[in-house]
């Protein structure tokens, strides 16, 4: 029975199937919002309001010819999309989808899971870099180096800003952090700076405008994914979608608190909160143009990192004097 439960947990909910469905929905939502902001329609034809469009894209890519360049490192080239997908799926399991009750948490909730989640979220960046490097294409290599260069910019602000609320809550466990803020919702307000910093850093992590530098198509064609096609590209795209869901869920859990109300309401809250974060990310995507790689690093260290440190100070002060 336990085995069956684990399998169900891994494959159906909140594992593979749920993440697949929800991430495609998130992509649809992102695309639709992006399009509407630009006065366009967005996906319309596949399914009601184009809801099935991301799935159709996925299926189409799965059916396409899969080409491995002759000079590429074939093992690495083939392995990377699968490993990457596995990593983000694992990260998805750690999300507090509905169980924010610290007494009976989710299956893999443990002290320090926020650290593990952050760690799992940095791994895709490495995967992208390796994917670019393994392709041995000039564009991919440039894309790969850009991925790494950007990593040095946004990773520190992201960690600092996500860990500040955890510090305030006094726990390294997502469920406990959510429970803490459910008890004291007013304490979410001091974390506002951290939320903004984390939003921007997550945007950079997800390589979306203005940080879509590693695959800026007008400069370096497909960037890291230039040589990828067919199933491998489909996996990579799915991976990016799931990464979007996981990172926005992380931000939602840490910064937006929770309001309890049992499994069903908790699940609805989870959806609403993540969609709100995705909406903000889409607006950020629509409102900016792509910046240059040197501008990313300058921006991250001149603005994001100091703001994140400021957030940390605020949290420490509150913890020392108010609580």
């Amino acid at each position, binding site marked *: 029975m336990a085995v069956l439960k684990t399998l169900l947990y891994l494959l159906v909910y909140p594992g593979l199937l749920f993440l697949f469905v929800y991430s495609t929905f998130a992509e649809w939502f992102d695309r639709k919002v992006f399009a509407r902001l630009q006065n366009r329609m967005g996906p319309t034809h596949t399914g009601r309001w184009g809801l099935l469009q991301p799935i159709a894209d996925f299926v189409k890519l799965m059916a396409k010819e899969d080409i491995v360049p002759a000079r590429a490192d074939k093992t690495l080239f083939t392995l990377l999309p699968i490993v990457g997908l596995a990593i983000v799926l694992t990260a998805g399991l750690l999300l507090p989808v509905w169980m924010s009750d610290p007494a009976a948490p989710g299956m893999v909730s443990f002290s320090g899971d926020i650290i593990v989640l952050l760690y799992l979220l940095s791994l895709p960046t490495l995967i992208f870099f390796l994917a670019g490097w393994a392709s041995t294409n000039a564009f991919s290599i*440039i894309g790969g180096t850009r991925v790494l260069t950007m990593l040095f910019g946004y990773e520190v602000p992201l960690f600092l800003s996500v860990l500040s609320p955890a510090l305030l809550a006094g726990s390294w466990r997502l469920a406990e952090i959510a429970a803490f803020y459910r008890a004291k919702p007013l304490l979410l307000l001091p974390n506002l700076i951290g939320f903004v910093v984390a939003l921007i850093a997550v945007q950079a992590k997800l390589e979306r405008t203005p940080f879509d530098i590693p695959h800026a198509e007008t400069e370096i064609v497909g960037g890291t994914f230039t040589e990828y096609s067919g199933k491998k590209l489909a996996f990579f795209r799915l991976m990016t979608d799931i990464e979007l869901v996981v990172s926005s869920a992380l931000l939602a859990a840490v910064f937006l608190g929770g309001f309890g109300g049992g499994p069903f309401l908790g699940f609805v809250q989870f959806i609403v909160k993540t969609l709100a974060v995705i909406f903000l990310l889409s607006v950020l995507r629509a409102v900016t143009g792509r910046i240059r790689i040197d501008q990313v690093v300058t921006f991250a260290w001149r603005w994001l990192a100091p703001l994140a440190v400021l957030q940390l100070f605020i949290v420490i002060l509150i913890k020392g004097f108010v609580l």
Partner: protein
Amino acid sequence: MSFNIPIGPQHPALKEPISLRMTVEGEVIRDVDIRLGYNHRGLEKLAEEKSWIQNIYLTERICGICSHSHATCYVQGVEKLMEIEPPKRGIYLRYLVSELERVHSHLLWLGIAGHEAGFDTFFMYTWRDREVVMDLLEMISGNRVHYAINTLGGVRRDLDEALRKKILEGIDVLKKRTEYYFKIGASEPTFVGRLAGVGKLSKELAMALCAVGPTARASGVTRDVRKDDPHAFYDEAPFDVATADTCDVLGRTVVRIKELFESYKIIEFILKALPPGPVAVKAPRKAKPNEVISRYEAPRGENIHYIKSNGSEKPERLKVRAPTLANYPATVEMLRDGFIADIPLIFAAIDPCICCAERTVELRNARTGEERTVLFSDLRRMANERARQLPGQRNVTWPF
């Protein structure tokens, strides 16, 4: 470590085929080779086999975006050869279309600049507003791209009062939108940060390399055929030559937006002063032996046609120089020592129309065997000997 990256002949940043071969070190471009010849249609040879009337439509198809400018340049030259004078209303209508075309071309370019800078929202908005002028052109001429409004001795279609009102309304909408773009679009920090200080071209270099159009005007070279060598009614039209002195992509953007306002002014002038009367006179089928140089300020710069007739129904020689070709040597200079990230912007900033630039050869076998690229190093050496280059200043900081 330096390596070569090929931009083109097929590349997302290029809407038409051209090959730019970059030698890059990290993210910095060290050398650029340009190779032309992917888009040759042999138009100049073909023009010698077609009659004067057929050539109107042939020259119109030199370019898809500035189709009217080539046809007008050709037609006003041939009218001089045939010694016919189109009626005033015809001339006004012809240049009404040409100013509307300039508006559409510059709006298109603004969108492209946004797209190349990864600012897709700007791209969508400008192109949405460009539809206004495209619809007007369709109503005037019957088609969105190839207006075919020119004929020898005037224009082919007249304008009625309702359409005149519609154009004025459309121009009002566009004016508001353009002001908005000027105010807002040019101050969005991520966008301006990408444009400012990129693709420097000093005035001396622009002159030595014979740059034309907004590229030259953004470097402070005040050249505009409409002012220097006024054709048709441009000596009476109220407008100023838009220039900038920043010598970078931001300057080229500013020049184009300013030119939009100048075009609106000219369009309103035309519609207010539109004289009554016929729109065309009958043209003969033959032209006396003569030669003529026809100049026209296309949206991308000066367009020059050299037409020679020998008394028959067909031209003896039609030489077309499109503005993009004149801007290639300058582009190479602009790209050098830039970042990879700036390639699409700098290249787009000359508003390249490769169709225009390449039209001369009958291309039967386009297979590329061994590589033959054009080395511009020698050109650069010569240009540097003749003109001092500004020290390469780059805006690498976050712009606020």
